[in-house]
């Protein structure tokens, strides 16, 4: 058989298998749809709204009433109730009936005239996403309350000219993601995190099954046949990558700042790298169940190690080395430099080359080992 013919025959054989095996087909069809869909749906709000906040008003003046109104009016917060003291508030926060409590201590109105009367915001730091949103919103509320108090109260009693704008101020902007949307940041990262794991499980299953069932004798692959077997998976998962990208950039409107083409090239490079690792795993272990377990360890925790949300520079030396060996880490960098912002040619090339490098150093020894196993009947049928 010529190489193109072997490629086509192997590809057709794989399609026929998938058509007959609904569970294997699930990994390519409804499971990616279900998992990516759930994530997209969950984060479709993008910004957090109406977090329940308690007011502990021990001052009982116009300041507390003003803050209550502002909490209700803030889009991110909702007033969950008033409680007399911190103990009562903590009890409600523990029971998750509120995320935070704003304490207005006694004599706040008196102290406000002298300036910098403390208001204390207690927030549930065990739920970090909500905690960050509560702090941001409460800061804005207090700034607004200060502006009003400055003109209505303090100007009336303070020395003329002493109420003036602050000497410095900052105008803050978030580049390329003006609303600081978590939808753009998280969904753009979570979809490829799910897809590369599903992809690797699918190809490990495809190549491992042949060894497990001994069907590799009848298949008797060469390099072209290996490529032909991988082709349906690459095609289907490129399709899912395209669909996930279209959802966020086309439907949800998070448009590309840089090159869409290079980003999709990144998807292809990432899949190739995980394909290389998959074949290497099977060549080394010759056992499907072990390879799947290792896949869980290797591709299942990528999201934590990619350094996209939490900084990698501060992680342990082990974590940094491990992250560098994960194609997804480089893909996350490419994503920030093609989709979110437009990086320079060098900055875009580096992660692409890193992924292709991983593909190369795993696929070559992987193919050699796998083809060796393919000719060795002793290595078939392992569980």
């Amino acid at each position, binding site marked *: 058989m010529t190489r193109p013919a072997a490629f086509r025959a192997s590809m057709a054989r794989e399609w026929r298998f998938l058509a007959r095996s609904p569970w294997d087909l699930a990994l390519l069809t409804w499971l990616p749809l279900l998992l990516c869909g759930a994530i997209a749906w969950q984060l479709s709000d993008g910004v957090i709204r109406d977090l329940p906040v308690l007011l502990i008003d021990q001052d009982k003046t116009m300041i507390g009433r003003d803050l209550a109104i502002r909490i209700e009016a803030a889009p991110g917060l909702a007033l969950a109730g008033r409680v007399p003291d911190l103990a009562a508030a903590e009890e409600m926060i523990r029971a998750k009936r509120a995320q935070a409590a704003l304490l207005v201590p006694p004599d706040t109105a008196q102290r406000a005239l002298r300036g910098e009367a403390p208001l204390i915001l207690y927030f549930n730091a065990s739920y970090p996403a909500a905690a960050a949103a509560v702090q941001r919103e409460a800061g804005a509320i207090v700034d607004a309350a200060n502006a009003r108090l400055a003109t209505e109260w303090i100007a009336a009693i303070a020395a003329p000219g002493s109420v003036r704008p602050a000497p410095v101020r900052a105008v803050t902007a978030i580049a390329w993601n003006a609303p600081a949307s978590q939808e753009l*940041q998280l969904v753009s990262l979570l979809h490829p995190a799910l897809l590369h794991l599903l992809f690797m499980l699918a190809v490990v299953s495809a190549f491992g099954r042949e060894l497990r069932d001994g069907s590799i004798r009848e298949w008797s692959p060469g390099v072209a046949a290996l490529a032909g077997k991988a082709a349906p998976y690459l095609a289907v998962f490129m399709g899912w990558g395209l669909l996930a990208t279209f959802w966020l950039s086309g439907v949800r409107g998070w448009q590309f700042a840089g090159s869409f083409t290079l980003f999709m090239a990144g998807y292809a490079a990432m899949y190739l790298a995980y394909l290389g690792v998959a074949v290497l795993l099977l060549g080394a272990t010759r056992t499907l169940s072990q390879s799947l377990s290792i896949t869980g360890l290797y591709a299942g925790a990528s999201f934590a190690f990619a350094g996209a949300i939490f900084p990698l520079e501060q992680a342990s030396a082990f974590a940094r080395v491990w992250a560098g060996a994960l194609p997804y880490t480089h893909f996350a960098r490419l994503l920030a430099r093609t989709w979110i912002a437009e990086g320079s040619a060098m900055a875009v090339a580096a992660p692409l080359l890193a992924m292709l490098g991983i593909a190369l150093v795993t696929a070559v020894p992987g193919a050699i080992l796998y083809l060796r196993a393919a000719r060795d009947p002793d290595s078939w049928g392992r569980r």
Partner: protein
Amino acid sequence: MWAAFRALFAAIMTDRAAALLLFAAPLIYAGFYPSAYTGEVVVRAPVVVVDQDRSAASRDLVIRVGAAQQTELVASLPDIAAAESWMADGQAVAALIIPESFGGDIASGKTGTVVLIGHGAYLLRASSALTGIGVALGRTGREAAREQARAAGPPAPPALALQPRPLFNTREGYGAAVFPGVAFVIIHQSLLLGLALLAGTARERIGPDLRLTRRQLAGIALAASFIGLLDVGWFVGMVFWWHDYPRAAAPLLDVAIGAILFVAATVAAALALASIFPTRERPLQLVLPISLPLFFLAGLSWPAEATPTVLVALARLFPTTSGLELMVGLNQMGGSLKDYWHAALNLGLLTLLFGIFATRRWTSGLDVERGG
């Protein structure tokens, strides 16, 4: 029943993949996963500065930003375009732009304005860096206020000052916020995968007629629950302490009951799921990828308040959602069982639901599709 209890342990011991999933995985993940989070709080986030003013005030600000714990000045650049391309290349997560008029405005009693730009792809690091720059700016501002006061008298301070106080996770570490939840997803997945793998294997050996008596099923469930409780003890008692994650002194009895409820619901779900798959490797293929969505649905990294209501309700079908709420509440927040009675009830109902399903499937002979 005790024969089945012992038989499960015997089966695990003779099956390397099952032993790996049920015994080794909780040990490996306890060291492996938190290593990504050892930093805990963001320090020295890379920042670039564009100082177009070059006045005493602007230089003062730049020095203070360089000294802030959260930030590290990586470059001083001539214009905004250069700052933007540094950020686009991923070399900085925030930029401080000091316009030409900054020093002059302060000197003449007006407001000196700076522009802060955070990187939209790195929201956590950018916001920490911006906080650090904000603190530096505040100090420069106080300095400037003293200067202004010589001409115009002391300014009136703002009426109110907000002081944030974190509860429970008081150091606000990100590992400390994430891992105490992730640990229960690990336990859940370890039991689900390990038991389903063993069930698939048994079915392959014995064939589709594999049937268990109620007592045998109870013995297996008890043995699996024993492993699950060991896992909970390992994470709650050892791993959280080892990484110094927040541990609240919740009543031991409440923690024990919470752990039993979570493990019972998980084992019931695992036995129900295990009755579906006819082959050994199938659960590994299909159950591994659900970990990430399970964690997000549990609401630690994305609050339930911002999740569509229908999805919040559906998420209650997984033991992890209520399990995380309950165990994080007891372990990290120091609540008691009555604070989370709805989560506890949810776990009880799931145990019942999955338990009935599993019992019916396993005792009446499995009608499993062949060839899967």
